[in-house]
């Protein structure tokens, strides 16, 4: 029986039974694989770390998209950094009120490969006329930006690897200059129980640039080790006081069907476990 073992931690790992390998690319710099697993459907892993699976991706993509979208309430322009699998784009495109979406992906091949092997992630979203795809390093794009956005979603790989530039102070500072007034930056920020430093490091790097900085959470089964945190940064302090009722109303108006996200989850996701609160209090 073939298996795939994640190599993220020295003392703990998750193992997948591999039913079929659809795609595998080995270079002297990275290893990318897409395989089929009976429990999680198609699984994509990069350098020994699970990136996404067909079965549980909805939790991640819905939470990283709809929480800031419906908190803001009138997002017109969205910038997606990374997200080559198209899952974020799919969720963003569900919002009819959005006028323009720019997605910056460093590697054209990632998009092509995901369209072919993970077609359910983008589900045709790349054909949406509101979408403009830019092939560039996300950090470079925000540094040299021409336009501004209401929402920036950073859907990156881990800080060790090709996504490292998307966890730097410089990147966060540049994102701020790309945001319209009252705009929001959200970013994938790792599994806090396993890598608490990621939370405190990001908080320290974001806080100089944004008056309102926090995290929200969701548990995604294949990002093992408990809840994943999403970094939240904005200069609009009122946003975090939006009520469940308002969110519910916006969700109904938006007429979006979700499998994980709802108004109660939205509000509850900002409640942080005490170990995260303590770490932030100690370090930041």
């Amino acid at each position, binding site marked *: 029986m073939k298996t*795939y*073992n994640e*190599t993220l931690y*020295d003392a703990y790992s998750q193992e997948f039974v591999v039913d079929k390998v659809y795609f*595998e690319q080995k270079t002297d710099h990275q290893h990318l694989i897409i395989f089929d697993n009976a429990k999680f459907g198609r699984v994509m892993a990069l350098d*020994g770390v699970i990136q996404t699976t067909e079965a549980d991706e909805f939790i991640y993509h819905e939470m990283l998209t709809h929480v800031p979208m419906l908190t803001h309430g009138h997002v017109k322009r969205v910038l997606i950094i990374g997200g080559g699998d198209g899952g974020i784009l799919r969720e963003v495109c569900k919002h009819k009120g959005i006028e323009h979406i720019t997605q910056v992906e460093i590697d054209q091949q990632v998009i092509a490969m995901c369209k072919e092997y993970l077609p359910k992630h983008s589900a045709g979203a790349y054909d949406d006329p509101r979408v403009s795809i830019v092939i560039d390093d996300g950090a470079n794009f925000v540094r040299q930006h021409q336009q501004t956005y209401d929402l920036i979603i950073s859907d990156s790989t881990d800080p060790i690897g090709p996504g490292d530039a998307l966890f730097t102070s410089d990147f966060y500072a540049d994102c701020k200059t790309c945001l319209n007034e009252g705009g929001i930056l959200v970013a994938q920020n790792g599994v806090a129980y396993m*890598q608490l430093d990621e939370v405190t490091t990001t908080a320290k790097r974001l806080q100089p640039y944004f008056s309102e900085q926090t995290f929200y959470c969701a548990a995604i089964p294949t990002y093992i080790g408990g809840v994943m945190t999403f970094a939240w940064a904005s200069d609009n302090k009122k946003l975090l006081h939006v009520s469940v009722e308002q969110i519910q109303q916006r969700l109904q108006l938006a007429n979006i069907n979700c499998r994980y996200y709802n108004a109660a989850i939205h509000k509850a996701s900002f409640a942080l476990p005490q170990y995260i609160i303590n770490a932030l209090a100690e370090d930041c």
Partner: protein
Amino acid sequence: MTISNRLSVKTPDQAVIYNDLVSQHGSPILVLDCDKVTAQYRALSEQLPGVDFFYAIKSLPHPAVIRTLSSLGCGFDIATSGEIELLQTLGTAVRHRVIHTHPIKRDADIRDALRFGCTTFIVDNIWELEKFIAYRHRVGLLIRVSFPNPNTDIDLSKKFGCREEDVMLLVQKAQSLGIHVKGLSFHAGSQCASSANHVHAIKQCTKIMDEIYQQCGKLLSILDIGGGFPVQYTKTVQTIQEFCPPILEALQQLPDHVQVLAEPGRFLSATSMEAVSRVMGKAQRGDMTWYYLDDGVYGSYSGQIFDHVTYPISIFSDIDELETAVIAGPTCDSIDVIDEGLQMPPLSIGDLVVGHQMGAYTYATATNFNLFDKASVVVINENNVSADNIVLFAQTQ
């Protein structure tokens, strides 16, 4: 006929196999026999049951050696990002089958290794330990301890390794930084005359591990005993059957939970290669006949300089008379002499000279000084290894 412990004269018919290879591949070549690698791995495994082996890639970083050892279940000891790249072209590591053993690393080296799936690293001082603060949730570290190793050709105790009395401090510092130290590591030298250094180091490490548990409550679960397993060149050394039993006995004193690792390099690779060169010119200078080979100490024989090894060599002749000769390499540098004062039958231009036991630290350290091409490697007996039974490198193991 053995003329000295260095030089054998064989009959011309024994050159046929080498002549065939040279007519096919040219010269100089290094003939890599994967069956020899397999035999050495099995011999060592038999002597040290229960020990996990991590081949020190640096001794012979060749894909065929890696594929062969991988198929046998051997892990890999890597020290640089270049070595990771070599492994990566062959596949992706299964965690715990790769250890990063360079005591001094750049941040980029750590990141490259983590991306490759390696989570075991070695440190021997505070500054190195602090480099892991950013990665503390992902790694398990070994602390390299230095024990003086006088009974060895190559003393590895000076450049790396902390003093015995510093281990406790490092463990405590790691604990305060939230970094997981999972064991100890030592190197008893290279090409050791006896296993006395290993035995001493194992005893000391056993004691240190116990003290750390008593004083810090920290359970160490790995002991990496390094390499040092000797290979017969021109000097008689202990056989592996003589060398290992004292080590095995010393390991009995370790608590049951401690897993033992070893990092053999030379022992696995040295016997796998023969260097086949041709005489490209000769000259009579004084009472010496000089033979200039197409390979020398800047090439495959570089181990004579860097590794302090004298390789056995063979020539092929049925002439009885002996002359005093010099065998030199092809470059313009006068240091490029393989041996001088050899009593040997005369050779002609085009004749073969074969160096034996030339797998370890030969190809690895060869240069192309003078822009002489390095010897190309001709792989034989890799038949038993196919992509399907490469255990380590199929990510899908």
